[in-house]
């Protein structure tokens, strides 16, 4: 393998890996406050992409993206308020089926609104063929956008959880919900907020990645599976570990093209998911003791 090819694969891996990491963080935010895996997480990414594409027909790009993110955020909040908020201690099986149902609804609605066609946002800078020379290889500026935006999201989120009182309340809610309630935190609002937050970051990721991967009504499902793989790989609930796990999966996937046909690429990441579930269900970076206390 030439060094140029190596770098190409590496950049592709990092790009996809950052997106997987964002989806995984979305899973983790909701999982931490509710104990629910939101199977509709991938649909937020699709919605962000689709909405911004539609809005961009009459709005400038930054404004279109901002509005798309806000709309997706509202949809996230509505989902929580309509379907989840009023349930009293629902079983895991019930929550799985409900979120799967929600993802089907969003997907079908998208199919009827936008059709089966493949769409994409224009490149933020330049076009399909413009490239920037980094080290000894050429990369599209959009790749830098994706990596940059994902990095900013991760940094802002960690600052939010660490230093703002709202972020601290959410963390309190995730470590012990009863204790948080006793301290006067409205845990139900925290859950709604967690849905809004993961919808928003999912939508933003969907916008920046749209020029490269294109957006289709059913592009959420694949991303959800990959994001879940990454979330489990890093240890469910651990957002920072999801970043390294995401990059790892992205790079493995990118280099696997050299060995197996593209059509089996999804099968590779799912095999990784299955192996990690069987061998280390607490994730690469999680501790076994902590995982034993959680309920999956």
């Amino acid at each position, binding site marked *: 393998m030439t060094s140029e090819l190596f770098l190409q694969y590496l950049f592709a891996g990092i790009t996809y890996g950052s997106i997987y990491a964002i989806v995984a963080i979305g899973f983790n935010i909701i999982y931490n406050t509710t104990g629910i*895996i939101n199977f509709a997480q991938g649909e937020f990414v699709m919605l962000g992409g689709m909405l911004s594409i539609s809005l961009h027909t009459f709005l400038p790009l930054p404004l279109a993206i901002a509005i798309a993110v806000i709309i997706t955020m509202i949809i996230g909040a509505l989902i929580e308020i309509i*379907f989840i908020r009023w*349930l009293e201690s*629902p*079983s*895991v*099986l*019930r929550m*799985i*089926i*409900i979120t*799967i*149902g*929600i993802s*089907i*609804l969003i*997907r*079908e*609605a998208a199919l*009827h609104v936008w059709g089966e066609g493949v769409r994409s946002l224009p490149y933020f800078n330049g076009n399909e063929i413009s490239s920037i020379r980094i080290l000894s290889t050429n990369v599209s500026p959009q790749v830098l956008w994706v990596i940059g935006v994902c990095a900013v999201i991760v940094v802002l989120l960690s600052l939010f959880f660490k230093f703002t009182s709202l972020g601290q309340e959410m963390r309190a809610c995730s470590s012990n919900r009863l204790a948080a309630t006793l301290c006067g935190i409205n845990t139900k609002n925290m859950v709604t907020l967690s849905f809004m937050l993961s919808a928003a970051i999912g939508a933003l990721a969907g916008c920046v990645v749209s020029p490269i991967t294109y957006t289709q009504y059913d592009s959420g*499902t694949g991303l959800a*599976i990959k994001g*879940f793989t990454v979330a*489990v790989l890093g240890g469910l609930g651990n957002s920072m570990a999801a970043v390294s796990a995401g990059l790892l999966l992205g790079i493995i996937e990118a280099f696997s093209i050299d060995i197996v*046909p593209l*059509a*089996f690429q*999804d*099968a590779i990441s*799912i*095999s990784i*998911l*299955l192996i990690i*579930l*069987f061998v280390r*269900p607490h994730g690469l970076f999680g501790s076994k003791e902590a995982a034993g206390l959680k*309920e*999956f």
Partner: protein
Amino acid sequence: MKTQRFIPFFLLALVLAGLQFLTQITDTSYYLTQMTMTAYYSLVIIGLCLVMGYAGQISLGHAGFFAIGGYTSAVLTTYNLIHLLEKGNSFVLFLAGKGLLVNGENLYGESLLYVTPWLACILALVLTALIAFLIGIPVLKLKGHYLAMATMGFGIIIYRVVLAWEIMGEADGISDVPGFTLMPGITVNGDFSNRIQNYYIACTILLVAFILLQNLIHSRVGRALRAIHGSEEAADAMGVNTARYKLYTFVLSAVFAALAGIFLTHYNGGIGPSEAGIMKSVRYVAIVAIGGMASMWGTLIMASVLNFLSLRGLFGSYDDAVFGVILIIIMLFAPDGILRLHIWQRFKKFKTGK
């Protein structure tokens, strides 16, 4: 006592025969095609009901087992072995010597040589059971979200494989699958003249499977499964071998799905990758949930009604959306199925005056 237990099954058989009679007198025998397909899909769903409702394990990969059965049978009964025979492949010669191959001719008069559907069927069932067994050992150790994702992952891998593998026909699937002659004079195929016969074949298989499952859940095994559903730890403590029971029911339901896949493939004369799709698995889960999870009768009724309506195209392009909506509504308002809604209990209380 024993004969009493068979009365409901006898009535069910009567209803199935009655439906056929009804299509005959109202001259709507074109419904029989969908009714036959419905019976096969219902077979998958009652099998899944055993795993979900009784053993309490979710499986989002049952379309995968359906596809393994259907595709294995389709590949074996359409793959032309004539060149291997001419080259003197010893294994093919052995099969031919045992009478396990059939000769045929295609449209251009070239001679073809296939594996007989009987052998293909048995091989497909054994393969499915083996895969279910091997997948089941690690997967069934998982719970909740992890189990759901792992089975879904398995389903997606199967989908990707049939979509990308040349021998499986890629996106086109496999067509021209020959009929399956069960006995001289009894053939599973899509022939117009064979419609009534095929309806009864499908109903017989469904009925036999249903009686088998009903007996199973009212036996020692069934009680063990319900104990597992209630609390796996408690069942373990009471000496129930939870891992083994979960695995056996998983394999059994996978075999049911494969059987349905095999027969439906021969009936339709082909199979496509959409049969392995994730939406199919979700649909099976949805119907079990609507039927009330741990209710074989409820599941059977819902499976028949909803599959039939869907196959008739009643939901149009909203097909998947309808199942999504039903799924959410049932899970929100009646997680024990619509046949066990509180309204019925209130109604009963009202009637008895309590």
